[in-house]
C-alpha cells in the first residue's frame, strides 16, 4: 500500500469513529469524545514519518495517531466505551488513550502539559543515547499556554530530540505576520512552517526527526490546514478544504481507487466500528474493584479498606 493510501485509510478510520461517537455522546451513551477537527491527515502523516523506536505524545483529539501505530479499532472503542475490555481499566476519559507497547503517551486534559513531558522523555532518550525521537502533537490553542513555552525553553536548552507539530488554521488568508513556528526561534528551536498536505508533512517530520536524532536539536513544525469546528460545536461537514476529502480526491485522480471501491471500504470500516461498539457494550463495565486499581503500584492500606466498603455497598440488597 502506498504511503498516501495508508494515510488516507487511517485518517478515514479516525473520521468515521468521530462521527459515530458524536452520535453516541449526544445520546448520552458515552462521555464527550473530542474529535480531530479535520486534522487526521496531518496526525497520521506525522506519525507514519517516525521510526518504530520513536514516541508520540498526542492530545485527546489525536486518536488517528493510535491507528497509524497499529492500535486495533476494537481496542480503541473498548477504551471509549470504558468497558471491561478497556486496557485502561475505564480510568481515562474518551480520547485519552495510550499504549506503552505502541509508544503512545497518555494525553492530558490540561491543554499543553504533555509538551514538557514529551520534552522530558526526549531528553531521557538522549541521555540514554537510544536514538529515539519524540513527536509532540498540539493544536494552535496549546501554543498560548504556559507549558508550550516551558517545553520549548527546555528543549532549546537541552537539544532534546523532539519535534513539536502544531496544526494551525491556514484556511483564512492572508497569513498572519507572526506564525506559531516563529515562537521557536527565541528558544533556539528550529522553526519550520509548511503546508498541511500529507506529503509535505511526511517529508518535514522525517527531516526534523532525523535532524533531532543527529543531535542537531528540536524543531517546531507548523502545518497549516483547514481546521474545522468540533463536531459537538456543529462543525464538520467535509468541504473541499477538508484535508481528508482533498486526499480522497487526489487518490481517486491518481487511480488508487474509485468512488465505488472507496464506499465499499467505508462500509467495511463502519461495520468494524459497529461490531467493536457492540463487543465493548457486551463486555459490560469493569468490576467496581477497578476503581481502586492503579492508584499506586500496590494497593495502599487505606484503599484496601475503601475497596471493602464499596464491595459491601454492592453486596447489600437494594
Amino acid at each position, binding site marked *: 500500500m502506498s504511503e498516501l493510501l495508508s494515510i488516507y485509510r487511517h485518517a478515514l478510520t479516525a473520521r468515521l469513529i468521530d462521527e459515530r461517537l458524536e452520535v453516541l455522546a449526544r445520546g448520552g451513551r458515552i462521555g464527550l469524545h473530542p474529535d480531530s477537527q479535520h486534522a487526521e491527515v496531518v496526525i497520521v502523516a506525522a506519525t507514519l514519518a517516525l521510526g518504530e523506536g520513536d514516541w508520540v505524545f498526542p492530545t485527546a483529539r489525536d486518536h488517528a495517531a493510535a491507528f497509524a501505530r497499529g492500535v486495533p479499532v476494537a481496542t480503541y472503542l473498548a477504551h471509549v466505551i470504558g468497558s471491561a475490555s*478497556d*486496557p*485502561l*481499566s475505564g*480510568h*481515562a*476519559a474518551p480520547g*485519552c488513550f*495510550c*499504549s*506503552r507497547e505502541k509508544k503512545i*503517551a*497518555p494525553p*492530558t*486534559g*490540561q491543554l499543553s*502539559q504533555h*509538551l*514538557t*513531558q*514529551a*520534552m*522530558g*522523555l*526526549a*531528553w*531521557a*532518550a538522549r*541521555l*540514554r543515547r537510544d536514538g529515539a525521537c519524540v513527536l509532540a502533537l498540539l493544536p494552535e490553542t496549546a501554543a498560548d499556554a*504556559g*507549558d508550550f513555552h*516551558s*517545553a520549548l*525553553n*527546555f528543549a532549546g*536548552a537541552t537539544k532534546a530530540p523532539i519535534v513539536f507539530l502544531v496544526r494551525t488554521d491556514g484556511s483564512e488568508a492572508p497569513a498572519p505576520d507572526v506564525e506559531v513556528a516563529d515562537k521557536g526561534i527565541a528558544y533556539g528551536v528550529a522553526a519550520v512552517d509548511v503546508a498541511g498536505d500529507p506529503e509535505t508533512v511526511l517529508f518535514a517530520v522525517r527531516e526534523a526527526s532525523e535532524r533531532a536524532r543527529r543531535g542537531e536539536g528540536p524543531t517546531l513544525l507548523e502545518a497549516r490546514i483547514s481546521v474545522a469546528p468540533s463536531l459537538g460545536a456543529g462543525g464538520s461537514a467535509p468541504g473541499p478544504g477538508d484535508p481528508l476529502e482533498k486526499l480522497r480526491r487526489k487518490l481517486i485522480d491518481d487511480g488508487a481507487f474509485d468512488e465505488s471501491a472507496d464506499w465499499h471500504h467505508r462500509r467495511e470500516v463502519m461495520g468494524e466500528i459497529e461490531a467493536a461498539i457492540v463487543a465493548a457494550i457486551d463486555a459490560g463495565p469493569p468490576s467496581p474493584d477497578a476503581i481502586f*486499581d*492503579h*492508584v*499506586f*503500584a*500496590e494497593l*495502599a*492500606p*487505606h484503599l484496601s479498606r475503601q475497596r471493602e466498603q464499596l464491595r459491601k455497598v454492592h453486596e447489600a440488597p437494594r
Partner: protein
Amino acid sequence: MTTSSQKNMVQSINEALRLEMQRDDRVVILGEDVGKVGGVFRVTQGLWDEFGDDRVIDTPLNEGGIIGAAIGMAAYGMRPVPEIQFADFIFPAFDQIVSEAAKFRYRSGGEYSCPMVIRAPVGGGIRGGAYHSQSPEALFIHTAGLKVVCPSNPHDAKGLLASAIQDEDPVLFFEPKRVYRAVKMDVPDEAYVTPLGVGKVVREGEHVTVVAWGAMLYEALSAAEQVAEQGIECEVIDPRTLWPLDIDVIVKSVEKTGRIVVVHEAPKACGFGAEVLQLVTEKSFLHFTAPPTRVTGWDTPFPYTLENDYLPLAHRIAPKLLEIGKY
C-alpha cells in the same frame, strides 16, 4: 564491617542520593542550581563532580518545566529526583504534580507510571517570610496518587529517601529546613532503607498521644518533657510518612491513652491534623476521654516578623498537653 558517623540531615540526604545514584544509573537529579552550585541548601553538593552533567542537571528556572520534564523522564524509565528550591515554589508545578504525575498510572490503566521523588525544603523558623516557610503537605495528601514523606532526623531522612527513590510511584519528599543542620546523629555510612508508611513511637507515655512530624517533632518532645514534670506522660509519634499514613500505630497509642493532640506548622483549617484526628475518631471514638485536639499554625499567611508567634512551638503545645492530659 558496618561503620557510621555523625551526620546532619543535609549530609545524610546527600549520602542517600549518592548511594542511590551509584546503585541505579537511572537515577538523575534535576533542578535549579543543583549541579555546580550543589543546590540552594548544598544538599546535592559534590554529586555533579562525581556523576557529571548527564546525571546532575541544572535546569532553566521553571518549576512546571522541571516537573513536566521529570514526568517524561520517569515515563521513559528513568528515576528522576527533581529538587524544588523551596516548597513555596512548588505551585508553578502544582498542575503537573496533581493533574499529571499523580494520575499517570491511574489514567493509563497501569500502562505508564511516574516513579520520581520531588524533594523540597518545608517549614518556617529561618526568617524566610511568606515564600520560604510554608508547609503545603495537605494539598498533596488530598491528591490521590501521591505519597508524602517528611523525615524529622538525619537517620530517617537517609533511609526514607532511599525507599522513596526505589518506590514505583511519585513521592513528595518534604525536608524540614530548620532541621537541616540543627540535628546531628549517628548515621550508618552504608546504604539502607527505612520503609515508607511506617510510623514510629519516639517517646512512650500513657496519658496523651502526640502526633508531630518534621521540625515540630522537636517542639512536641520539648513540650512533653515540660509536662512530664507535672505528671503528664505523653506518647509522641512521628508518622514519618504522612501518606499513606500508618494509622495503626496512632490508633494503638490512642486506645492506650484515650487522648490525642496533633501538632503541625501548616494552617489549621483543612490541615493534615484534621484528617489524622478524624481517622482516629472513626476507629477509636469509644476510647476518647478528652476531645481530639490540634496545635497548629494560625489560619493566616506565613508572617515574616512574627514567625515565632505563628509556629506551634513548645510554649504553645505544653499548655494544650496539660489541658488535655487533665481533662
